[in-house]
């Protein structure tokens, strides 16, 4: 059994890696101008056989694909952390309003930058998003102390999300006309527009948080049995909860700063990975959620920009189409399981 489990995990990781590689190549190849696979490969090795293709790959497609991979992974891990934290399978940065909170502070920062005329860099964006994410997270926590029911918690989160969205819309309405379009695109969620400086910033933040989350695997696993049992196993609950809040906020803030709010990845991907790997052990599931999130977002981004090309969909539209059914299926499945036991 133990060997079968390890084998299953290995096979799944291998499959995900292959899929990631495949989607990565497809993303680089396809778009308004199709670039042949061999050209892509040559460009990736650093040569420059075709100036136009080189620019398209290195300036547009590669950053975009990388940000889908990194941010998608981060978002999914953030969802897994929140689900463990609230012991609620449909918790996630989007559902709990954390993405919307981050979006609000980033929008405010953008508008301020436009009006005052200073140049934004990625660090400021991330910081603003982090502040928004933490504020929303704390508000949700305030509610979670009072509500025991998981549906109520989600409703509270969705309402907080609505309030933040309304405030964002209000802010956008009073912003400069010329730049509303830019803000509007971002606020719907998109992996485009990242430059290499952004990629570096997101990679550092996401991989650091990921490493942090991975090191927390042991207490997360203990926490899955419930707070009292975790405490008895020697987990310092206060420190652990604080770390979990900071990590999940940092991850969802980073994603929101660069890609805007992206829906459903945080709920659907961890759930799909639990099914695929047949376990909820954080030691396996944290890397799995990262890889799965990257694959899911690369796939969705590919669809978003190629399905109705040259017209581009927002990535949230696509993630919702694939993610929402997973959530519904999960609810039905859980109801069935409960009726059996």
């Amino acid at each position: 059994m133990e060997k079968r489990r390890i084998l299953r995990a290995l096979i799944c990781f291998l499959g995900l890696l292959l899929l990631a590689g495949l989607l990565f190549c497809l993303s680089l190849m396809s778009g308004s101008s199709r670039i042949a696979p061999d050209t892509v490969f040559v460009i990736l090795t650093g040569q420059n056989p075709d100036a136009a293709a080189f620019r398209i790959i290195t300036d547009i497609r590669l950053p975009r694909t990388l940000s889908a991979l990194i941010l998608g992974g981060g978002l999914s891990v953030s969802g897994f952390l929140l689900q463990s934290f609230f012991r609620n399978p449909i918790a996630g940065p989007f559902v709990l309003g954390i993405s919307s909170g981050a979006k609000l502070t980033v929008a405010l920062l953008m508008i301020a930058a436009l009006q005052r005329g200073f140049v934004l860099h990625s660090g400021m964006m991330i910081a603003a998003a982090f502040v928004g994410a933490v504020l929303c997270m704390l508000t949700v926590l305030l509610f979670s102390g009072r509500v025991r029911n998981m549906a109520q918690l989600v409703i509270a989160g969705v309402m907080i999300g609505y309030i933040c969205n309304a405030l964002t819309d209000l802010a956008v309405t009073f912003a400069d006309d010329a730049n509303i379009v830019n803000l509007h695109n971002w606020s719907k969620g998109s992996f485009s527009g990242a430059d290499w400086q952004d990629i570096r910033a997101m990679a550092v933040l996401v991989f650091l948080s990921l490493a942090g989350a991975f090191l927390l695997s042991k207490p997360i696993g203990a926490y899955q049995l419930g707070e009292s049992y975790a405490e008895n196993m020697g987990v310092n609950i206060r420190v652990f909860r604080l770390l979990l809040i900071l990590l999940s906020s940092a991850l969802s803030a980073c994603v929101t700063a660069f890609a805007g709010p992206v829906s459903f990845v945080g709920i659907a991907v961890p759930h799909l990975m639990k099914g695929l790997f047949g376990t909820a052990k954080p030691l396996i599931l944290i890397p799995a959620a990262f890889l799965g999130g990257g694959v899911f977002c690369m796939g969705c981004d590919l669809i978003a920009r190629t399905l109705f090309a040259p017209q581009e969909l927002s990535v949230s539209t696509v993630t919702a189409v694939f993610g929402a059914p997973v959530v519904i299926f999960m609810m039905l499945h859980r109801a069935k399981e409960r009726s059996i036991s």
Partner: protein
Amino acid sequence: MSDAVLQTNALSAGYSRRVIVDGLTVSVSAGAICTLIGPNGAGKSTVLKTVAAQLPMLSGSVALCGDSLDTLHEKDVARRLSVLLTQKITAERMTCGDVAETGRYPYTGTLGILSAEDKRIVHEAMELVGAAHLYDTDFRQISDGQRQCVMLARAIAQQPKLMLLDEPTSFLDIGHKLHILSLLRRLAKERQIAVIQSLHELDLAQKFSDTVVCVHNGKAERIGTPEEIFSGDYIASLYEIENGTYDPRFGAAEPAAVQGDPEVFVIGGGGAGIPVYRRMHRTGIPFAAGVLHENDVEYPIAKALASVVITEKAFEPVGAKAVENASHVMKRCREVLCCTETFGSMNQGNRMLKSQAEQLGILRPETEDAKKRAAR
């Protein structure tokens, strides 16, 4: 008391500033089982949570193997104390083995990967509770009783000095109740583990404890051996039983007797009368029972359920006085049921009663009467 695994001293347990149990001083030594009993809401769980360091103590002290709970690191507490709590765990996609393996948490490294030795300890614990065959089964798909066994295996795998269990047998069938408590008894003895638990099953608390602590009115009202606690009327007052009686000798709870003048007289003895008493009580008919020896097996039940019981001293023949009293009551009843066919040498008085009833024409044969009622 330096050999005590658990020693509490004037411990006050409660929430924030509200004291629920005050001035608790108990000590549990290795190999001993200490059971907290007391009515719902008396504070048994509060005491246990405080001892388990899950609630801050309000005053007093708790020492675990001689070290104060305040000064011990979380990890050291975890290596000395394991718990089994009432809350249900929602283990998503975990096998029973996974759940039991979490007991090794305080012994594993940063990433929590189990060594071969850890695995062996978990397997041994699962074997001990008789759940080895469930190792690869999903934790959500087993019965409550099996789940409790797995949680016990988890607590054993933690290799504690003290095991703390909050109502470990509630919601289990009687077979599992006995299984769990017998296991605890064995563990305490063989591995010299100290056990502190709360129980609602008084009869089992009486049989499986070395010390019983009665939590009532915000304090440990009494602490003693089961023999000291389960005697006299104390249990009835501890649980404030008003609608019935509790016989601590047998752990038998009986409902209150049907009040009123007896309508039926039951001549019983040797246990034959018990089903009749139960039926009378169930149908709400006030009845008299007699003549019963005070050492008769059905005496306590008759005492609890009948409105009048006529008795004779233990090992004495049923005397004239008792028969006279009985016939006095019997004459005012509309019918008499005789549950015995034969009368021993000590029981000749009841033979006389029976023939008296026959002459009066109010004797109903027990069996036919039962059939008639059943048919109705």
